[in-house]
């Protein structure tokens, strides 16, 4: 191929974006900080996906228009540092294609060179040994080694080969990479994009496969055809009779709906006296049924595997239509004076938030990055005059703040909670009879009283903060620093607690992750009550992924 036009570039960008999607967990794993919540791959993936969506339906053959549109999508959807840098590289790339309908290999090289120039301009002191170095060195190599006979395919091959060599050199430029034994994650992400772009040129563009991480230690990637999100999981429908009050929990429809929304989608809940009808699409029907059974007994139950239905439809088989148990659509959320919105990462944590009056939950935690749009949807759904948002993660505070500024309601306030435990503590301070300003002041003050800690596992061997940590060992983190490590998560938790608790402490809140069974939870609770008998203790099943324990000390 001697030239490429807009359509070819569009295919390259989309294929690059898909390839990055298929590999983002591996790129996340390269993150320097050895906590399995690295977000470089995810952030670059979300950024590129935003760009791809912009050009998906464009049919321009003009290469300049496609590049400009893609660049705009990247800018709007940029997430994290790596996403912002990626957006600048392709912004410069688009500037290099300004006014051109198609380009040859020299034009491609000039565009990459411009990308480097623009990317480097946006920082006072560029840090070498990062994605900036990889794009600079690969672009320079391409420029120095191409000639008139070089095809576009060969040029991109040269770019990728030098990018890989540059990536291997990044630990020599950035000491922290060498210390932990990894290459730069942003550079690795860029190579994934370039490789996807090359696949498009070869006529075998990358499609998205499911990068599902059921187990963070052993990520499962399903090969095969991509599937529509709606057709995955179980269509779960039931009718239940509430009560009796002597053995069942009191039913609150708003809270019930919030909890189910965190476990599935396409949710419909209708109550008629003491009968509740539910329809939900979920990956875990068992957890939905277990939760619902706290409030009543089932009269009718139906669960269908939508994945199998999809396969049957795809193969031309007849599929029996399911009996219509779908009740009438839920009535609009009644307008209310106040609403609390929180980001949560486990169904047990959802319940905890619901208990203290949080009615809207946004999926989040360390491995996800809810966007401003997610918060806007929650604000709209809350349908309240005054709203308080608890982001519960330092990465999410900005998105929440942006959403609060973007919505029409002036009385949306962000309480800048950086951890789940901070958010819980702050939300408990809410007083519906106080003014918004007083509530905000009280809740912000509550944040400062919480020391947050986590126990999780290391994804690689590393030396950090004077600790020698092995892969799969458990690590205890206090206020974002690793302070203890060991082979037993329970012992690591106990060591972490000894560092977190002071003479002024009065309350310990502990949320146990999905990997902690009931017997371990009881053992841990007994230990804490015995060793910290002066303190109030609240131990619960949070069911959060990745973190065995989330601890808050006040």
């Amino acid at each position: 191929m001697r030239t490429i036009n807009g359509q070819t570039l569009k295919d390259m960008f989309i294929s690059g974006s898909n390839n990055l999607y298929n590999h983002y967990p591996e790129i996340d794993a390269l993150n320097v900080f050895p906590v399995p919540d690295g977000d470089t791959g995810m952030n670059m993936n979300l950024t590129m996906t935003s760009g791809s969506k912009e050009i998906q339906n464009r049919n321009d053959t003009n290469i300049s228009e496609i590049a400009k549109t893609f660049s705009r999508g990247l800018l709007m959807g940029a997430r994290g540092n790596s996403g912002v840098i990626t957006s600048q590289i392709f912004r410069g790339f688009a500037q290099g294609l300004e006014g051109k309908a198609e380009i040859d290999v020299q034009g491609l090289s000039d565009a990459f060179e411009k990308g480097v120039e623009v990317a480097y301009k946006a920082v006072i002191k560029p840090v070498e040994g990062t994605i900036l170095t990889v794009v600079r060195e690969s672009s320079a190599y391409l420029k120095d080694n191409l000639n008139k006979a070089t095809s576009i395919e060969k040029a991109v091959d040269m770019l990728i080969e030098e990018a890989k060599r540059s990536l291997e050199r990044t630990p020599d430029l950035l000491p922290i990479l060498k210390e932990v034994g990894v290459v730069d994650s942003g550079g690795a992400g860029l190579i994934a994009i370039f490789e996807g772009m090359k696949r498009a040129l070869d006529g075998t563009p990358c499609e998205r496969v499911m990068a599902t991480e059921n187990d963070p230690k052993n990520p499962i990637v399903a090969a095969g055809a991509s599937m529509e999100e709606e057709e995955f999981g179980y269509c779960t429908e039931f009718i239940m009779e509430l009560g009796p009050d002597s053995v069942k929990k009191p039913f609150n429809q708003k809270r019930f709906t919030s909890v189910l929304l965190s476990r599935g989608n396409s949710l419909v809940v209708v109550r008629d006296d003491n009968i509740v009808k539910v329809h939900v699409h979920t990956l875990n029907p068992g957890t939905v049924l277990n939760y619902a059974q706290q409030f009543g007994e089932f009269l009718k139950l139906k669960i269908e595997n939508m994945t199998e239905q999809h396969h049957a439809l795809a193969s031309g088989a007849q599929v029996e239509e399911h009996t219509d148990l779908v009740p009438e659509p839920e009535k609009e959320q009644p307008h209310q004076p106040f609403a609390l919105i929180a980001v949560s990462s486990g169904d047990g944590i959802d319940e905890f938030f619901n208990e203290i009056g949080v009615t809207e939950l946004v999926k989040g935690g360390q491995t996800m990055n809810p966007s401003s749009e997610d918060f806007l949807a929650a604000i709209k759904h809350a349908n309240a005059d005054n709203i308080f948002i608890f982001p519960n993660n330092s990465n999410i505070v900005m998105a929440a703040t942006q959403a609060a500024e973007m919505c029409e309601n002036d009385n949306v306030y962000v309480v800048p909670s950086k951890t789940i435990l901070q958010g819980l503590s702050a939300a408990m301070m809410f007083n519906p009879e106080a003014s918004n300003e007083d509530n905000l002041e009280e809740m912000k003050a509550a944040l400062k009283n919480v020391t947050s800690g986590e126990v999780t596992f290391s994804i690689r061997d590393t030396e950090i903060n004077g600790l020698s940590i092995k892969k799969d060992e458990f690590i205890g983190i206090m206020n974002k620093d690793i302070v203890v490590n060991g082979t037993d998560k329970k012992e690591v938790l106990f060591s972490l607690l000894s560092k977190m608790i002071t003479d002024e402490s009065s309350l310990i809140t502990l949320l146990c992750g999905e990997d902690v069974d009931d017997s371990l939870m009881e053992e841990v609770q007994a230990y804490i009550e015995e060793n910290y008998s002066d303190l109030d203790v609240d131990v619960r099943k949070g069911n959060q992924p990745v973190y065995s324990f989330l601890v808050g000390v006040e």
Partner: protein
Amino acid sequence: MEKKVIKKLPSSKEIADMVYEIASACYGIKGFTRFDSQIIGKYEPLSLKDIKKGIIVRKYANGLFSVDLYVLLADEVKLTETLSECQKVVRYKLNKQYNNQCRHVNVYAMSVVK
């Protein structure tokens, strides 16, 4: 039980120097400026010798400190992500250096420069 040890802090100048080194390497930060309530509109970058006027360090009686940065951002970067990342990195490195005694870091975007 272990008690948190509050270390004696270095001078404000030393903290500001460190913040300057960290923030200068943050992607999207193009310079520092001095906040002036009389100015409406574009802020000008500070010269190197005045750069610390864009970094305000406040110390508290309990041994904690906070930092305010008044920054100029690069053109056409996503502002929210740039500010968030700068705040995250500055806070992380300050707390590592000074034993978690940094109370908060505020980053104020004053203007965008090409």
